[in-house]
């Protein structure tokens, strides 16, 4: 006999079939279409809101979300370049020094 309380046994008995039904539903084509549509609408609304407010924000000398995004992308790009340069420097520091040609071999 299970030591679990009655409410829990009832919950488990209900949760499994309900869970299976929902899990099946989220794998379905309509759900996939819904997710894709939701993402598309979200982007569309955001773009329209930005477009609508851009003129007013710029009129009072305030940046829009797009301006901030562009700036942070530029900063990220700069940081990537700094990172690449420091990696190159590290590689140069750890690399063995180039061999000098001795006087004998040079002559």
């Amino acid at each position, binding site marked *: 006999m299970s030591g679990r309380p009655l409410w*829990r046994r009832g919950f488990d008995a209900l*949760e499994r079939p309900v*869970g299976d039904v929902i*899990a099946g539903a989220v794998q379905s084509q309509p759900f996939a279409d819904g*997710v*894709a549509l939701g993402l598309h609408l979200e982007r569309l609304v955001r773009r329209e809101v930005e477009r609508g407010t851009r003129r007013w924000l710029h009129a009072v000398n305030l940046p829009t979300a797009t301006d901030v995004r562009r700036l942070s992308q530029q900063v*990220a790009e700069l940081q990537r370049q700094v990172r690449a340069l420091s990696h190159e420097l590290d590689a140069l520091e750890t690399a063995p020094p180039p061999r000098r040609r001795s006087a004998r071999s040079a002559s």
Partner: protein
Amino acid sequence: MSGVTQAPEALLKRLERDVARAVRRGRNGLRYAAGTQRTRVGQTPKDVVWRRDKAELWRYRNDAIRYAPPVVVVHSLVSRSYVLDLHPANSAIRTLTDAGLDMMLLDWGVADAVDADNGLETYADEYLPAAVDAAREAAGTDDVTLLGYCFGGVLSLLSLARHPELPVRNLIAMATPVDFEGMASMTGLLRSRRLHPEDVLDETGNVPPEAVENAFRLLRPTGEVAQYATLWENLWNDQYMEGYQPMAQWTRDHVPFPGRAFLQTVDLLVRDNALVHGPLRLAGRDADLAAITCPFLNVMAERDHIVPAGAARPLEGLVGSEDAETLCLDAGHVGLVASRTAAKVTLPHIAEWVQRHSDRVEA
């Protein structure tokens, strides 16, 4: 007669127990809701032995190392590595350290806009080989044992397949997906091209942690409700709460998935299933799992809903190792590393396998 006299006593005892539990349930519930008694995670003492950008290699302190080379754990890109060191009583790292192993962990940190450009090859060709070198240097050994967990296993496989010359003595893949056709419930939307991977990226160019969390949530839509039911059932139990809190914290604590690596994952691993159908061409270079010839252990969980056993099982046949073994356990994805099964079965088996494939050294 005795049954009649015992009944009120038993009833009284049960009442006492229920009242005591109700009091503890109330106290623990308040503490949990207020977040005043959070368990500290990642308590095993460690030192940072290597750092590059956001990646760090940690070496766990151990005065009783009995085996070499060190074991370098390569963590996933989408979750926090403290799952391996949740709590002193539930710590994979501690269990393996206690087995005399020299444990190190490669943590990727939290990706931001700067890391959005990191591709799979950034990890496989740059970070991982450099971390392996740093581990060898820190431990004073010629090679290492690599242990990749979840997507960290994929990165380890890619690194070793693209660089078979890497000084890796042994390779362990834990809950590592290779056959992405077997991960339909996780990747179905992307695989069928009903969802474009670019649409999932946020303004930083990465997959936001909420998207990662939602993807996991979709795998078991009623999982969270069931989790709360279990919490309510055990809220009176202080010991349970001590273990529950760090785990609950971890399941809601994801990190962004670097954008370019995500796009490559969808394109090459999910849609082309290139780890199985290979070779996987990445940044102008092929990665063929057959090039991996070191001793290999594939550990997977029978009840893993994130990386189903079917997605991990083909690995043993794909690598070129003659000494290859598969261990399939009755556990879930996280249960492999953080559970009673982990402490009693998974980790001792891994420790024994590593010991068998390592050199004994004087402590």
